[in-house]
């Protein structure tokens, strides 16, 4: 039906309405949607995949690597069983996550690239390596280009929804994916807020509402108040790793039983489980992998998972000032997983209210996002409402003893800022490490580390006299920037918290270059050039050090390094960027000890005629600082501690 509306009268509406090219996108774990506001003010999801508005968030990377080898949506999903490792599904779970996360490898069939980058990377067909931001960008690009085809106009601005519970790293990664897909991301909008927006306008209601959003991979609970045309989010909570995919896995566990788990088998079991779960929303019995599964078996398997939503719900209700849901005017259901009867039953128990589900729970988020895109871009928006959202998690700094000092508490209305003053703890201290954290726990190690940076150039003063003011600013997208400023001299440093999702600037640059939709060969060429340049750089640097500090090496050590330099040179003449990279890494390894000795010597020289206290730590690299600390401990000794072991040439 939705199909007809779009291809017949809806189409012409769409052409008139969407002149700004601003869309709403629900970038979901399982499915993604794109919607626009029509001339009559109604938001409408566009059919983008085989006539459906739901585009499965599945990306298949085919062999060959040409532009046509990437397949997205239903066709990709069909290829998943055959090519489980080359077909990335539910990539949203990996957004902003580090490869060290245990979550990352749980029951997932993918091959992960090793390497020192903290970000997850998948190895797909032909040895191609992609990260979650790039995979998400493929989904976004498919939505954009297919919407452009339908609408006949350029789509270049979007409101993209994220789970309210997404942390800073996950938000940054999502924004990056949008940029990579050629979209200006007008705003990141929390999914439950988007759903409430779609409902609120539809019903013209006032009051306090809870949005219970259980999607494929994430659970969100939000409590909102609608009043005088202002949507105020009172509290949010959730679990960024809980959703319908977990239901599928729980059921797949039963199906797999004691069988051997090849990636192919696991993928097959998960697919069968998903199908059975869907069948069981209507029927009492379903078949999966040649077995009969009844509804109570499914419910027993997923009950513990469903109950995991209770904690965040109670906390959010308390934070919003409606403990136990007393005084709540309604509960809105969002996300495909809320179709499961056991989930609905649990929601009813939890809130003591019959939940609302009259807008399609799969579409409601995208529709809300389209409304927000219209609000942000239209000359005279179709609706006159304002959304006031909150921070999902507290933001703080590490203080003495590994404790967290919170600067902005969770559920603070954004944009928000806070400033706190810190002081030095050592005489003559000239640098201060700023460690930014997100989370509710007391100890640094229990929270998510967002960024570390050093404020250097503090005037050397007795301990406790220098004053460093650290300011946090959270913008309307929920993204944090941090400024540290020394009050006496005005020395200051600002960062937007972004290294958090583990991508270095070069990686982002590389991804942007790669994203200009050029063929795989171009990317390979680019990588080749980059690696050749890097090889030249490191060869030059090593040569220089051998010339001026060669006396620090034994003949054998020198030979070793020179042999590896030759290997780098040889690789750089070839056409394989991976090989060059590998040889560069090896050279790094072989010459690490030499580099340290050179550094030590440098410090030794620098310290001659200086007292230790005068030394400006801020100008030293981390490596040198460590060496410096060791030196300080050995003060009075003739030289660095390891001098006795040093080979004499």
């Amino acid at each position, binding site marked *: 039906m939705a199909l007809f509306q779009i291809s017949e009268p809806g189409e012409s509406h769409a052409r008139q309405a969407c002149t700004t090219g601003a869309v709403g996108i629900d970038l979901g774990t399982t499915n993604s949607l794109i919607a626009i506001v029509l001339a009559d003010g109604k938001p409408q999801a566009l059919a983008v995949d085989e006539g459906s508005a739901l585009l499965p968030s599945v990306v298949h990377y085919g062999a060959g690597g040409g532009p046509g080898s990437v397949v997205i949506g239903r066709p990709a999903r069909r290829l998943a069983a055959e090519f489980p490792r080359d077909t990335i599904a539910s990539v949203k779970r990996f957004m902003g996550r580090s490869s060290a996360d245990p979550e990352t490898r749980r029951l997932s069939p993918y091959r992960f690239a090793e390497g020192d980058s903290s970000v997850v990377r998948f190895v797909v067909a032909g040895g191609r390596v992609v990260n979650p931001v790039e995979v998400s960008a493929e989904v976004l690009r498919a939505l954009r280009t297919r919407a452009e085809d339908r609408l006949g106009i350029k789509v270049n601005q979007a409101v993209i929804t994220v789970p309210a519970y997404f942390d800073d790293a996950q938000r940054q990664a999502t924004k990056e994916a949008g940029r990579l897909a050629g979209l200006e991301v007008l705003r990141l909008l929390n999914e439950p807020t988007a759903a409430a927006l779609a409902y609120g306008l539809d019903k013209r209601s006032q009051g306090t509402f809870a949005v219970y959003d259980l999607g494929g991979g994430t659970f969100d609970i939000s409590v909102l108040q609608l009043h005088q045309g*202002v949507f105020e989010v009172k509290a949010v909570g959730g679990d960024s790793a809980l959703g319908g995919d977990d239901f599928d896995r729980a059921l797949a566990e039963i199906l797999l039983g004691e069988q051997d788990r090849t990636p192919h088998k696991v993928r097959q079991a998960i697919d069968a489980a998903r199908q059975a779960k869907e069948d069981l929303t209507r029927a009492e019995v379903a078949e999966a992998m040649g077995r009969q599964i009844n509804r109570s078996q499914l419910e027993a398997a997923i009950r513990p998972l469903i109950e995991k939503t209770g904690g965040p719900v109670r*906390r959010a209700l308390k934070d919003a000032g409606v403990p136990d849901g007393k005084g709540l005017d309604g509960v809105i259901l969002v996300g495909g997983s809320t179709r499961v009867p056991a989930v609905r039953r649990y929601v009813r128990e939890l809130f003591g209210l019959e939940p609302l589900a009259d807008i399609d729970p799969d579409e409601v988020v995208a529709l809300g996002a389209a409304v927000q895109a219209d*609000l942000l871009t239209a000359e005279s928006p179709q609706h006159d409402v304002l959304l*006031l959202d909150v921070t999902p998690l507290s933001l703080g700094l590490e203080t003495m003893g590994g404790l967290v000092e919170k600067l902005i508490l969770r559920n603070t209305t954004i944009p928000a800022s806070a400033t706190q003053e810190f002081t030095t703890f050592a005489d003559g201290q000239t640098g201060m490490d700023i460690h930014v954290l997100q989370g*509710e726990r007391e100890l640094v190690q229990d929270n998510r580390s967002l960024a570390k940076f050093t404020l250097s150039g503090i005037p050397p003063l007795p301990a406790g006299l220098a004053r460093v003011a650290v300011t946090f600013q959270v*913008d309307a997208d929920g993204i944090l920037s941090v400024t540290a400023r020394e009050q006496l001299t005005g020395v200051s440093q600002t960062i937007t918290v972004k290294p958090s999702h583990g991508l270095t600037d070069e990686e982002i640059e590389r991804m942007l270059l790669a994203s200009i939709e050029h063929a795989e060969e171009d990317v390979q060429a680019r990588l080749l050039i980059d690696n050749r340049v890097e090889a030249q750089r490191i060869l030059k640097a090593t040569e220089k050090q051998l010339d001026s500090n060669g006396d620090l090496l034994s003949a054998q050590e020198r030979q070793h390094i020179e042999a590896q330099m030759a290997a780098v040179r040889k690789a750089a003449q070839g056409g394989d960027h991976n090989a060059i990279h590998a040889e560069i890494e090896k050279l790094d390894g072989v010459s690490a000890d030499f580099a340290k000795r050179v550094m030590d010597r440098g410090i030794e020289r620098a310290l001659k005629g200086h007292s230790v206290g005068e030394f400006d730590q801020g100008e030293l690299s981390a490596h040198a600082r460590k060496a410096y600390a060791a030196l300080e401990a050995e003060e009075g000794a003739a030289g660095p501690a390891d001098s006795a072991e040093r080979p004499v040439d």
Partner: protein
Amino acid sequence: MKTTSTCWSCGAPGGAAEPICPSCGKVQPPPPAGARPDRFATLGFEPSFDEPEGLDERFRALARKLHPDRFARATAQERRYSLEQTTRLNDAYKTLKDPVRRAEHLLQLRGIEGDPKMSPEFLEQTMEDREKLLEAKMSGQPLEALAAGVREKRDETLREVRRLLENGGDLSHAAELLARMRYYARYLDEVEGRSVEL
């Protein structure tokens, strides 16, 4: 000083005294951070111990005018001003909405700032209260009576702060009393078990 109150856009004198210039309607930069901010003034109220009447309505009306969503199509400069103004507005609203923050701000406006020293008697009393709570929790006794006692103390303390503030009493004593509120709040959080795990 004159120049700071001139609208950056139309040059109207006094245009920057308001968040939105009355003569050209452009959003203005917030006042420089150096000045001690009066959160009541940000929302157009006189300082008061009680929540100003119409606080929610005034906040929503201002948010509708100043929020970055209203400036998505504006210049970078205006977007920055809108962000700063809304940040300031949100902060003011949060301060005025909460009885303890509001009272602390009243003290701030009268020049009382920083962490006051807590009296040893109070700290001792706090320790005792916590021990009792722990015992009760271990032995599975109902906690409601204990919580009610602390709630009573909390409310009485706030009433005392009001008396000191409104009748020109000892303000540094008022500051210490206010600091106690944090201890009470933490205690009550604990009674409720923080039942919901973080």
